């Protein structure tokens, strides 16, 4: 092979090898894996992207001033973890969670972290003591009738299980009304509720508005985006009771907001968890994962209930002793409405 023929090929290989090895040149420098850098990275991620400090009455700058001096190059992993989680706790936000190797997930929300009132809901009691024979039960929903006169639907999350509502309305069309149970609903994708609740409204209804952080500045948000529930299918005009509790969260709460705008709906139970935003997740240099809220959400009354929760029309909580003996007081209150 002649020398002049080889040179171009060699040059091309050389250029390619250079390009493929220039990682440092291409990429933005990664955050460093040391306690101080991790702390700074963590604090900045929330400072730039967390959307509801004001609603949750947390002064993030002040928390920095208090906690930054506690971190130095000798800070141990246990100490760093303790400082970070102590800063997340005041947010009391169901969307804020922290996952670290070999540890139990830290939930900023006091209900989730301490499992307060977690055992005041029991699906087995409903199936055993309230639903008529022939009910349907799986991981996505439970539905059936109560006393042959009320339709009942339990939804543990909001996703592609939502269209089952249409089946329930058809199958139990002769009943007096419907109970939708969103207690311990872990959320999901509220757009499934938007497209599945259309038989429950006879007119287009404004259900909530939201906006999302779109920059690192404190006031960097998108424009407000209005969400509407549109009518569709055969209108269901019978009474509807919605059940909620402190574990009704996120898309479960957005779904509750939709029900709140319907005139034939009574909400019974406990106030919802109060985490209405969508969430974003990130990773720190030592591999730990965090999640944070990135939206503000307001009801048609123009008020954000983030950190407050959606209060029921009738406040009632189950009693643990009663529940263990098979009595779901919240469900019984709902049944009494028909």
């Amino acid at each position, binding site marked *: 092979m002649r020398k002049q023929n080889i040179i171009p090929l060699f040059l091309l290989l050389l250029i390619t090898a250079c390009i*493929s090895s220039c990682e440092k040149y*291409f990429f933005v420098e990664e955050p460093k894996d040391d306690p101080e850098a991790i702390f700074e990275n963590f604090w900045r991620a929330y400072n730039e992207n967390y959307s509801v400090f004001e609603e949750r009455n947390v002064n993030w700058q002040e928390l920095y001033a208090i906690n930054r001096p506690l971190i130095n190059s000798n800070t141990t992993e246990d100490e760093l973890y303790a400082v970070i989680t102590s800063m997340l706790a005041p947010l009391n936000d169901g969307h804020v969670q922290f996952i670290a190797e070999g540890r139990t997930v830290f939930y900023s929300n006091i209900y989730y972290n301490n499992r307060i009132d977690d055992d005041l809901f029991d699906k087995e009691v409903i199936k055993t003591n309230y639903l008529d024979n022939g009910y349907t039960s799986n991981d996505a929903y439970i539905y059936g009738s109560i006393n042959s006169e009320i339709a009942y639907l339990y939804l543990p999350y909001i996703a592609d299980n939502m269209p089952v509502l249409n089946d329930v309305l058809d199958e139990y069309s002769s009943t007096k009304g419907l109970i939708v149970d969103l207690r311990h609903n872990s959320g999901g994708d509220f*757009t499934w509720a938007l497209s599945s609740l259309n038989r429950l409204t006879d007119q287009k209804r404004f259900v909530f508005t939201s906006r999302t952080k779109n920059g690192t500045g404190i006031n960097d948000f998108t424009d407000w*985006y209005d969400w509407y529930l549109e009518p569709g299918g055969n209108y269901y005009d019978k009474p509807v009771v919605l059940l909620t509790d402190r574990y009704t969260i996120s898309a479960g709460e957005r779904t509750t907001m939709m029900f709140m705008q319907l005139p034939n709906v009574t909400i019974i139970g406990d106030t919802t968890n109060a985490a209405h935003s969508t969430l*974003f997740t990130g990773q720190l240099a*030592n591999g730990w*994962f965090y999640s944070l809220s990135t939206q503000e959400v307001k009801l048609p009354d123009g008020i954000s209930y983030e950190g407050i929760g959606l209060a029921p029309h009738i406040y009632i909580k189950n009693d643990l002793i009663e529940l263990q003996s098979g009595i779901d007081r919240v469900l019984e209150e709902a049944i009494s409405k028909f």
Partner: protein
Amino acid sequence: MIKRFVFTLVFVLLISGVLFSQDSIKRKNSIQVGYGLHHLASQDLIFSPFILKDFTPVNFGIVYKHEDRFLHVAEVYFNSYNPVYINTFEYYTVPDSGKLETIKNDFTHVNLNYVFAKKIKSAQQYSWYLGIMSENTIHSQYYYSGYFSTFGYFASFGLSAWSQLEYRLNDKHVFNVAAHFPLTAWVARSPYLANDDEFIQNISSHNGLRTFFAYLEDGSLQTLNTLQQFDFKLHYNYVLSERWYVGTAYQFSFIHNNKPLNLINYQNGININSTFHF
């Protein structure tokens, strides 16, 4: 499914071979199938400041060429990666303290390209082609943070400058170098923090195809100031017969985009391939 695909491909190639076996004139068509080992390094500041990396054997490509007065090339490439910054680890959940393991991210890259080119110079050993390419890149990305997942996407549909140099060392050894970069492209990317109301509205149809087009609708026309994309391929082919070539190829692909935040993505790959001329 894969078996059926391979069988169909082999069948088509064999039938083509029989049909064209009497043809002694210059072959105008070729189809090449390739498989390779690829490395990805990706830093998308929408999702993470860290460089996510993976080395994967799940990479395929099919290239069809037709050369007469002009050269037409249709290419499909598929890559699958599980890039991470730090390896997976175990953690526990409340209330049952069940042990869970973090999940690796899941990226799928698809490229669908069409080239229209003309041989502009030909010597004894060299042939130089220049043309334009419809360069279409789609990246679907699932980022996993413990039990949470966030979906991200990058799609660019561009008009690219394309060039290829073919060098025949002798009757048995053929080198081929091709490079291309988009001059302008319609680019759609995840929004800042991945989930804003428009994104949520886009997924509300719960229909994959509608959602895909809704993402694209939110894109914008970009040029070299915001999108720098460059692909380079170096092929070596050994001529087994008039119809069959086997070879190896090195592929390099680079993407830089800065709307809404910086994205750097590069892939290196070594492929083995087989080409059938008919």
